[in-house]
């Protein structure tokens, strides 16, 4: 599903150049649930940005579902993001003046899905994250966990190939964190490919594979025995 070969990325900081990613190679198969771990400055955010087509790599290859991602125009990148990727952010990033259902329907709006169909789909995905009764509520009326579940529904609404979650539990207490992870595991059980960036060990162990980044290189890449979040909920 995802294939990365010898990925390099550096940032110019004044006269210095900061080499953030120093040759990353890894592959993600369909249906995997991968945790990307590392301390801050390890390059995990940069890697996620590149995977999310929010930033370009200096050199190396990135192939997503058989499509090489390179030198994209803004418009093309927007199209690919819409088609291939679903984002789950640490701070949820819901649009505060839109109801839960409207937030979920937003990626479909950018896909030019007709309004009625958008609403139906939004309700379907809200139901899946257990928030159908909250469809008409604004984000300000919901708890952090609920907001993140709306965000997950939004990420899934466009039926992307890969879900990218950037510290999805970063802003949540441990109980709600496990609820969210439980949801992510269930989505993964349905066959969705998910990448989770996190620095929390327990969250990482709820995935099926941990990729450890340090100073811009992968220092460890192992499959693990998944800890089900259900038992903590």
């Amino acid at each position, binding site marked *: 599903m995802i294939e990365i070969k010898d990925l390099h990325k550096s940032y110019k900081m004044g006269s210095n150049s900061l080499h953030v990613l120093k040759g990353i190679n890894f592959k993600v198969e369909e249906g995997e649930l991968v945790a990307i771990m590392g301390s801050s400055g390890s390059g995990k955010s940069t890697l996620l940005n590149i995977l999310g087509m*929010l930033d370009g790599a200096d050199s190396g290859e990135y192939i997503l579902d058989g499509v090489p991602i390179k030198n994209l125009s*803004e418009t093309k990148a927007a199209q690919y993001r*819409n088609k291939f990727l679903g*984002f789950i952010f640490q*701070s949820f*990033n819901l649009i505060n003046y839109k109801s839960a259902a409207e937030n979920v329907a937003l990626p479909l709006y*950018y896909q030019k899905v007709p309004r009625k169909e958008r609403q139906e789909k939004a309700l379907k995905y809200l139901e899946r994250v257990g928030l159908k009764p909250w469809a008409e509520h604004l984000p300000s009326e919901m708890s952090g966990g609920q907001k993140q579940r709306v965000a997950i529904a939004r990420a899934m609404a466009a039926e992307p190939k890969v879900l990218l979650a950037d510290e999805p539990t970063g802003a949540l207490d441990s109980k709600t964190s496990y609820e969210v992870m439980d949801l992510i595991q269930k989505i993964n059980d349905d066959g969705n490919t998910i990448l989770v960036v996190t620095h929390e060990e327990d969250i990482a162990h709820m995935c099926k594979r941990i990729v450890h980044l340090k100073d811009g290189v992968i220092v460890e890449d192992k499959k693990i025995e998944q800890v089900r979040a259900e038992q903590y909920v």
Partner: protein
Amino acid sequence: MFDRDVWQEIFNTLKTNKLRTFLTGFSVGWAIFILVMLLASVNGMQNGFTGQFNDDATNSIFIRPGTTSEAYGGFEAGRRIQFKNDDIEYIKKSFPDEIEYISGRYFASATARYKAETGSYSIQATHPDHQAIEKTLITEGRYVNEADVINKAKVAVIGRKVAEDLFQKEDPLGQFVTLNNLPFRVIGIFTDDGDDNAERRIYAPISTYQQIYGNTNNVNSISLTYNPNFDLTEALEFSNKLEILMKRRHKIAPEDQAGIGVWNYAEAFDNISSFTAVLNGVAIAVTFLILIAGIVGIGNIMVFTIKERTKEIGVRKALGARPSQIVNLVILESIFITAISGFVGLIFAWVILALVGPNFQTDAFRDPSVELSTVIIATIILIVAGVLAGLIPAMKAANVKPIVALSDK
């Protein structure tokens, strides 16, 4: 464009920035207010002009003989042209379908006396048709008629001022007034909307004066009206034909402007139309200059809003919004603000004009009003202004990197 999602967004941004939106919208509304007032004033001036010219029939032509400035047809330059009664007959015969009314004019001045009162007045000796051409309004009695002309009757139609001056409180009708010591019977009194001076005039049959002054057939000038259904082009064409004909008849070089003067009111109207068109243009230009302040204001507020919404725009882009969709949204919002505030200004100006307008009724200025064309012009200007105002903020918004969605600041 008529997407609920888009409008929801626009209303939300406006709602959260009510005061800011109002203040910047005000400058646009103010500019449109000025535009409408200016255009209405031009309109009022136009109405004033038209009103003044309406005093004479607007389809009238005056022909005056002059002195040739070029040698032509065997004659030397400097020859005085003299019209005769024949010329009137000739024109009538040449344009039987085009001519509505035609009259010769013979100018004189006279000292008029009635009992002890005397006064000096200008005399216009005319044919009966002259009444229709000058739109002379008879208030009492009648105008000069055919019989008067045939009989060379010594009758006079006097202006309201003349009647006041000479007859004071007496009824002038049927009385005899002496003009240069010849008695003329007063057969009518007229008024004139145009001006008081016109009411210090005395009309008499043309033949009478031709006889008094040397028994000639001389005519000082010819006035006529043409078919009132002619449009401007036809009217100008007709007066050109008339000029050519008269020049040929009197052996005047075709390009000689001094030999004969043909004065067509249609030309004056043509001039007024182009004059007011220029004024309209100036009004629009001035407005646009004033609008620039509003455009900058709205552009400014929107750059602000977009800065505040950077993260949201980033999220949208991460979710697949194309740059063009973001640009459209911003431009539409800008047009919306300018259009709404502009129309408020428009309605405000319209209300004021409706209240105050009827009180302006002078000669040069009357009935200032908002016309449909004004509304259309204002709308076009507003949309252009809205696009201009939205341009820079839209570019800002388009340049927002979706990466900001990930940064938690």
